[in-house]
């Protein structure tokens, strides 16, 4: 039975700004699901509605089979980690973690045991007597996590917890979070706009845009079988290359280039003359010299990253991005390169609806 379920949640803010529209979500027990989306897409709203911090206008929320739609947050048995951690400034770390347990009526001993247990788990045992304002960003985050875990809630809700950390810390915490939630084996709903975070941490991703759910599925599903152009473009760094192609006599034609359409795509292109072709940067093969059925491109810029490089190529006034190994760069002598697409990895999208064919 799914642990958390959202059914047709709609929320409209003042002045008719749509927060969420008919948003559905199913999260199974012990699953780690990320609600991923750009700023203002409604992901935080969805999370807050699950928590009870906002009230939906339409739709129902279920936690562990119970309809909690009209129950206030204090009775939903959840834990929420805020983007800014929301630690109580007037209490020390111990108190911050203990207060939720105290309210629920645990004995002093039980509280002490729990707090120490969770402090060890998050390596903050020596910080228990400190006040939040004396802690670093990373330490505060651990306290926020400890507070959540100590309560042993039904669901963990995390609202962009890594956004306020610097890049190095963020990477480290990402790994730690993954380990942490694996150890606890809890149900987690995570919100972020960072697709790398989403891909690395979650079992499933719910991609949301402008208040609507675009696709719900495993990371692989969203990456290799995106429902539409939006999903395809959102996941993947650098993002997928897309451009319009026409179909003529069994070939994809764009500009002066054309190549034969591989057999496996034939069923998809019945009665279609134009579509949008997508190819991911890592699926573009780059050659220093012309190869059979390759196209020539002009090098626009080279971005050297650690371990790989991004080539911005100018092909007939379209910019394509390709990813190559670092060493490849050193062997580039000229301004032109030849590229070929990996024909197994083509994405075909309907030109008007932008859906995957």
């Amino acid at each position, binding site marked *: 039975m799914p642990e958390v379920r959202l059914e047709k949640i709609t929320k409209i803010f003042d002045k008719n700004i749509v927060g969420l529209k008919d948003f559905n979500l199913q999260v199974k027990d012990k699953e780690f699901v990320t609600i991923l989306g750009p700023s203002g897409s409604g992901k935080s709203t969805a999370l807050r509605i699950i928590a009870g911090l906002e009230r939906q206008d339409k739709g129902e929320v279920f936690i562990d089979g119970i309809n909690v739609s009209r129950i206030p947050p204090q009775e939903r048995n959840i834990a929420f980690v805020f983007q800014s951690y929301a630690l109580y400034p007037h209490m020390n770390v111990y108190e911050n973690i203990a207060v939720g347990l105290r*309210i629920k009526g645990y004995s002093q001993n039980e509280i002490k045991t729990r707090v120490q247990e969770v402090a060890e788990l998050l390596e903050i045992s020596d910080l228990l007597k400190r006040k939040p304002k004396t802690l670093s960003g990373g330490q505060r985050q651990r306290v926020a996590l400890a507070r959540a875990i100590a309560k042993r809630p*039904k669901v963990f809700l995390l609202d962009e917890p890594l956004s306020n950390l610097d890049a190095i810390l963020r990477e480290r915490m990402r790994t730690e979070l993954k380990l942490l939630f694996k150890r606890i084996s809890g149900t987690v709903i995570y919100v972020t706009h960072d697709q790398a975070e989403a891909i690395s941490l979650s079992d499933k991703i719910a991609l949301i845009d402008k208040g609507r759910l675009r696709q719900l599925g495993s990371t692989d599903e969203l990456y290799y079988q995106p429902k539409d152009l939006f999903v395809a473009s959102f996941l993947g760094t650098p993002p997928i290359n897309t451009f319009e192609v026409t179909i003529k006599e069994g070939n994809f034609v764009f500009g002066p280039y054309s190549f034969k359409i591989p057999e496996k795509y034939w069923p998809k292109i019945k009665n279609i003359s134009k579509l949008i072709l997508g190819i991911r940067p890592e699926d573009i093969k780059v050659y220093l010299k012309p190869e059979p059925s390759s196209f020539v491109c002009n090098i626009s810029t080279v971005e050297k990253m650690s371990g790989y490089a991004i080539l911005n190529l100018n092909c007939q006034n379209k910019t394509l991005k390709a990813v190559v190994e670092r060493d490849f760069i050193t062997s580039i002598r000229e301004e032109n390169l030849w590229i070929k697409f990996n024909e197994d990895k083509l994405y075909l999208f309907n030109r008007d609806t932008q859906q995957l064919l």
Partner: protein
Amino acid sequence: MSLSFINFGETDKLSTKKYRFSPIIYGLTQISFYLLVIFIVILHLAPFLWQVICSLKNVDEIYSLPLKYIPSKISLSAYRDLISNPLFLRYLLNSILISLSTTFFCLLLASLSGYALSRLSLRFKTFFQFLLLIACLFPQIIFLVPLYELMANLKLINKPLALVLPYVTFSLPLAVWVMTGFFQTIPKEIEEQAIIDGFSRLKILTKIILPLSRPALATCAILIFIGPFAWNEFLFSLSFMIKDTSRTVPVGIALLSGASMYEMPWNKICAACVLTTLPLIIFVIIFQKRIIEGLTRGALK
């Protein structure tokens, strides 16, 4: 009140508070809230409103029973008498003169001091702040005797300066805090740029800082004027202004209502009260946002 809520992970004993989000309870809460708000507003405005009503009654109605809450005939006779009373007008004039002078000078000093405090770290800064604290913390009575002595020695009794000096002094703490707070919001880079460009410190103050400060100056001026040491002040005015023609209007009214209670009818006294408080009320209404903002910022310090 022990609240042992259900333990997690296991089945929830469903909360009996399911009605929490029901529209009926919500409606009732809203109504009682607004009733409370109305009651609070009435409480706060009632004394003043009653004065207004009574000031519009004529002499017979004021002393008639049962009490009328709405005057049967609005009469401005009380106001007419007051305005034609030279002594009352003199009181008003004194108040206006003294309050405006206080506001002006206090504003001047507070701006200069506020600027110095916000920008420059001076050795005497703490001592200065200590003096400010003394001036605002302790009640007036503590300063009364020596100040009277001082004013008498300086031969300032019955002269406006006797009031302006202490008024400016005791208005300084709040004014300085408001101005300091404001100056701290002006980025230092602006002045640093000006210094690099060769401006003298004085020029920076007058040509750059001053024009930027207009809103804060306005807020500060209002706070001084409606504060306890300008228009509204009583004790020092009562003590230092002994001659009738030097008195300010709060003292004037208090005396009128005291000794000569049987000579001046209450509708006239009420009218005097209204006339005295009206300018303040108008100020508060027009500038209410500014005032509350200014005080709030001061309070946060």
